[in-house]
């Protein structure tokens, strides 16, 4: 189903007024989706998985993340902020959750919910799914949308290992809608706004994998909302310590977004992997049959998981610590019985109303490696690529506008570049000895 490409939303955008074409982002991209053209970085929409590695690598802040118009909120009578626990982790240790909530109310939200509300229900659904799919041993969590897209494009054979179910964000937004309609609020009046820690989650909301649309009215970048809240906090104008009545969570739930927060709910053989390189390495091993996990593999492309998201202003280790302290406090409150865990839904209600909507019918593999549908033609192309590659210097200097010599060879075959792109092709052979061998020794070969 190649038409998915046309509908594939991307949150990462290069500002060509700022971009210098320096190649940093291109070299950082794990899917080789970036090329430098006319002095600017260009992202291939079919290869980009919105992981944000380019954003992190850019020294000029030329890559930005589109967000919805904040005024979109005004269209709804009830404005619901759906915040991940990670958001709370962005603020200094002495800022309380209730202070943050009070600021959000002042900004204009009528309801505030944390995404992790649906987590406990979801764990049971995942366990049931795993028990029902006996032909699969290694289950990959669908939680990190960049991982799902990485698998679709680079590990298509592992698409079947992804748990084909929705994630806490979807579940909680559905629960909130149901809950509010139970309270007599018309669903057309409700706008659910998701506060995102990263680009991948924005892309997932805008074009959900395997579905037509998402129940989210708009997305707000976490750093944007953080600034608004921080501004109010600094003015101390927010209503002090307004009690947060209805939004309690268990301590374990709010750790879901940290590394291991998901896998801890499954049996011992489950794994938690974070960081892009680690995720790719592990996927290779699963694909080769080198590793077989009889359980769940939690995978997040950011270091330290969501607190390492590119829209998180706070240092990820400080944010992680703040979440852990908060989880500990909640646990203490529950033990002392001075804390009421309020449920949006009872288990029966959830099973009846929400659970039937949790499955994702298909996740389409979209191999970014595939050169051609016809194997005969593809074989010829591979041969030509290999030929060209053998003539390139092999030092992956990126001056040609491609991340590696082999990527340039592929571009040449696809007629997206020519051998002229390689600067070495313009050097007279005698210059090789004079200039280049001094640097690269005899490894460098004239074109």
């Amino acid at each position, binding site marked *: 189903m190649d038409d998915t490409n046309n509908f594939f939303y991307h949150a990462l955008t290069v500002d060509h007024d700022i971009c210098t074409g320096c190649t940093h982002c291109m070299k950082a991209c794990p899917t080789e989706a970036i090329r430098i053209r006319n002095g600017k970085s260009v992202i291939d929409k079919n290869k980009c998985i919105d992981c944000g590695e380019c954003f992190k690598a850019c020294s000029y802040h030329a890559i930005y993340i589109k967000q919805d118009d904040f005024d979109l909120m005004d269209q709804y009578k009830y404005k619901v902020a759906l915040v991940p626990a990670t958001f709370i982790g962005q603020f200094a240790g002495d800022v309380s959750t209730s202070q943050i909530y009070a600021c959000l109310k002042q900004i204009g939200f009528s309801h505030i919910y944390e995404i992790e509300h649906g987590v406990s229900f979801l764990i049971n659904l995942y366990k049931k799914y795993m028990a029902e799919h006996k032909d699969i041993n290694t289950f990959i969590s669908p939680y990190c949308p960049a991982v799902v897209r990485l698998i679709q494009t680079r590990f298509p054979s592992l698409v079947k290992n992804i748990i084909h179910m929705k994630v806490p964000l979807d579940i909680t937004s559905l629960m909130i809608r149901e809950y509010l309609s139970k309270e007599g609020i018309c669903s057309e009046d409700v706008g659910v706004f998701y506060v995102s820690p990263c680009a991948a989650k924005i892309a997932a909301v805008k074009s959900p994998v395997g579905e037509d649309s998402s129940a989210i009215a708009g997305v707000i970048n976490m750093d944007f909302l953080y600034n608004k809240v921080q501004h109010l906090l600094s003015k101390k104008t927010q209503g002090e310590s307004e009690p947060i009545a209805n939004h309690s969570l268990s301590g374990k739930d709010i750790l879901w977004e940290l590394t291991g927060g998901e896998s801890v709910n499954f049996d011992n053989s489950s794994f938690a992997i974070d960081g892009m390189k680690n995720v790719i390495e592990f996927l290779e091993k699963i*694909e080769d*049959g080198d590793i077989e996990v009889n359980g769940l593999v939690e995978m997040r492309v950011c270091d330290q998981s969501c607190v390492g998201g590119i829209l998180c202003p706070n240092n990820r280790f400080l944010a992680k610590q703040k979440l852990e302290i908060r989880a500990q406090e909640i646990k203490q409150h529950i033990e002392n019985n001075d804390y009421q865990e309020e449920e949006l839904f009872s288990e029966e209600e959830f099973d009846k109303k929400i659970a039937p909507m949790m499955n994702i019918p298909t996740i389409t593999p979209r191999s970014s490696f*595939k*050169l051609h549908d016809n194997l005969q033609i*593809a*074989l010829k192309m*591979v041969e030509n690529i290999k030929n060209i590659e053998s003539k390139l210097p092999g030092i992956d200097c990126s001056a040609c506008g491609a991340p590696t010599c082999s990527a340039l060879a592929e571009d040449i075959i696809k007629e997206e570049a020519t051998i002229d792109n390689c600067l070495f092709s313009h050097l007279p052979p005698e210059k090789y000895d004079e200039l280049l061998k001094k640097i690269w020794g005899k490894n460098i070969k004239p074109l």
Partner: protein
Amino acid sequence: MHYTFDIEEGNFTNAGQASGNIKKTLKQLNVNPASIKRIVVALYEAEINAVAHAYGGKIDVDIDSDKITMVVADRGPGIPNIDLAMTEGYSTASKEVREMGFGAGMGLPNIKSNTDQLDIQTQLGVGTTITMTVFF
């Protein structure tokens, strides 16, 4: 389409380079994932065999439009008894090799089950050449 790789004696860390390389090419060719997995497993096992038992060697891979042929030729002691070597669980791997998690006696049986054609030529004191074919 021809590829050649060298196998270094005793270097387990590097084993898997050939299979990793071939895997990428097969993905570019859009070969079905089930075949890719069989090929990668068979080639990796053969690589490990050459690293563990022999004194290194060479891998030659040919990809055609309907099949892949992989020839792993090692400079090694040779296999004294092929029938025994083909038995699951039978292993002559050294204690050192076993301590690294290899040498479970599944190498050749695994290669056999993951290939469509398998030919083993061995000469004691000279080496072993394994020719594996998988049809797409």
